[in-house]
């Protein structure tokens, strides 16, 4: 599509809603203002850059970033570079494209432009998550989250690859409890919104606590239950939760994180009592 020589088109929510159904695929020349907080390398120094992206019906933020990559000309008509971002599944199951969209942490792939514009007609603002080191632009290094999963041993330990027969039976009730926790994709939303997870705190974060509860409920993974509880009773463990409960509200997978946290509060207390009084 040709660049509009007159540049910006003012937008309003009402015109947008009417146009959605009548537009051709080119979007009638209407453009979305997309403000991106950019950073060229991990050493810092970020700046805002605005792009005018031609509107298309049914766009998501990933599409917007693809359109910018195809034509990286900013709103000042200067030639820029494609905006770097992480992505993989494009269907909200991998967590890679997590970023702060219009002030709220979520996945770019499931952030629909139509609903974003309905809430804020002036445009879309994209920032990288603030709790992780930025690699470039919207691409952050989420490795601290995976390190936390290693600390709490978020796995079912097996001795080898030989056939050890069927595993223990898990009742449907236990499955119903465990399944929501297993949906976690380690995306980082919960820690991004958590006021206790920051660079002057050692808090391990809601995702890892919830995974500890998930694996402690598994009949085979229970073998390492006390190892997990030892981590949760250590520095940066469960006691660093401040009960702001933002985690459960921003979780894209509706994981009952605050339930896991409260269970961890109970399990760690009992674990410590067992320890102090020698079981």
């Amino acid at each position: 599509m040709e660049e509009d020589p007159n540049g910006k088109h003012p937008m309003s929510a009402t015109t947008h809603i009417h146009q959605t159904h009548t537009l051709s695929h080119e979007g009638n020349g209407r453009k979305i203002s997309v403000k991106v907080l950019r950073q060229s390398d991990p050493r810092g120094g970020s700046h805002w850059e605005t792009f005018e992206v031609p509107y298309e019906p049914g766009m998501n933020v990933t599409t917007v970033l693809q359109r910018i990559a195809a034509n990286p000309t900013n709103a000042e008509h200067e030639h820029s570079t494609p905006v770097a971002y992480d992505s993989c599944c494009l269907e909200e199951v991998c967590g890679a494209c997590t970023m702060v969209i219009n002030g709220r942490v979520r996945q770019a792939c499931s952030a629909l432009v139509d609903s974003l514009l309905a809430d804020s007609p002036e445009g879309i603002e994209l920032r990288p998550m603030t709790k992780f080191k930025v690699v470039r632009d919207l691409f952050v290094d989420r490795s601290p989250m995976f390190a936390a999963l290693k600390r709490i041993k978020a796995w079912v330990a097996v001795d080898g690859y030989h056939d050890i027969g069927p595993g223990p039976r898990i009742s449907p009730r236990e499955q119903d409890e465990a399944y929501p926790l297993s949906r976690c994709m380690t995306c980082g939303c919960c820690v991004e919104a958590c006021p206790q997870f920051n660079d002057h705190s050692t808090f391990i974060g809601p995702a890892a606590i919830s995974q500890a509860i998930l694996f402690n409920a598994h009949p085979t993974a229970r073998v390492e239950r006390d190892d997990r509880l030892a981590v949760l009773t250590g520095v940066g463990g469960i006691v660093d939760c401040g009960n702001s409960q933002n985690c459960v509200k921003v979780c894209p997978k509706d994981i009952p994180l605050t339930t896991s946290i409260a269970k961890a509060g109970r399990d760690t207390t009992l674990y410590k009592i067992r320890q102090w009084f020698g079981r």
Partner: protein
Amino acid sequence: MAEHEHQAAESPADKYYFLIRRLHSLTGLVPVGVFLVVHLSINAMVLAPGPVGSEFQRSVERIHSLGPLLAPVEIVGIFLPLLFHALLGFVIIFTCQSNAQQYRYGSNIRYMLQRATGIIAFVFIFYHVWQMHWFGEWAGGGRFRLYDESGGALAATTTAATIQAAWWIAPIYAIGVLSAVYHLANGIWTSLITWGITIRPRSQQAAGYVCAALGIVLSLAGLGALNGFRALNVTEGTAQKTGHSVTAATRDR
């Protein structure tokens, strides 16, 4: 952040991290929280029917019947746990990075308020103890008196005179009392989660209503008592109990 090399060298603070933080939660409830409830209930006695301040006087006398044991009980039972709770509270506040502006959820705002009211209550309690308690006498405070020289009741009148000494004292007390009450009510709600008693959203919500009700009752008791002391006629109250007017003299003693 969540990059951890803590396992290497464990300091005592790290080793007893969990215990220290659970003690923080516990001291907030017992004795500090219990003390606040008792304190505000006794204050509210100023509103009791009968001769002005007599029921309040009797309640305070019951506490003072501990005699020489009162000071050690106060120090070990209230001041030290309170100081531990407050100082560790400040350490905890330094690990927080509030984002209530960005994520305006009710629970997030309550989280922010819990920290703000903790600071306000701490400053207020210092002011309040200096002003009323005999601990503050050496620094020009310590206005509260149980008896005058002739054994007349002074608990209500000295309290009222202190509150009425300037127009800004009652508002400071209102802010201080409301902060302390909020901090306790919301603190009970979070402690129920901390100790793993309310696990699911429904039980947490139910506990929220109970804590809110407790907070409202304590606020009404606290503000009611404050208003009682504010409205108490200092001259009359003293004269009624002791038979002679000693207000001005005892206030400056």
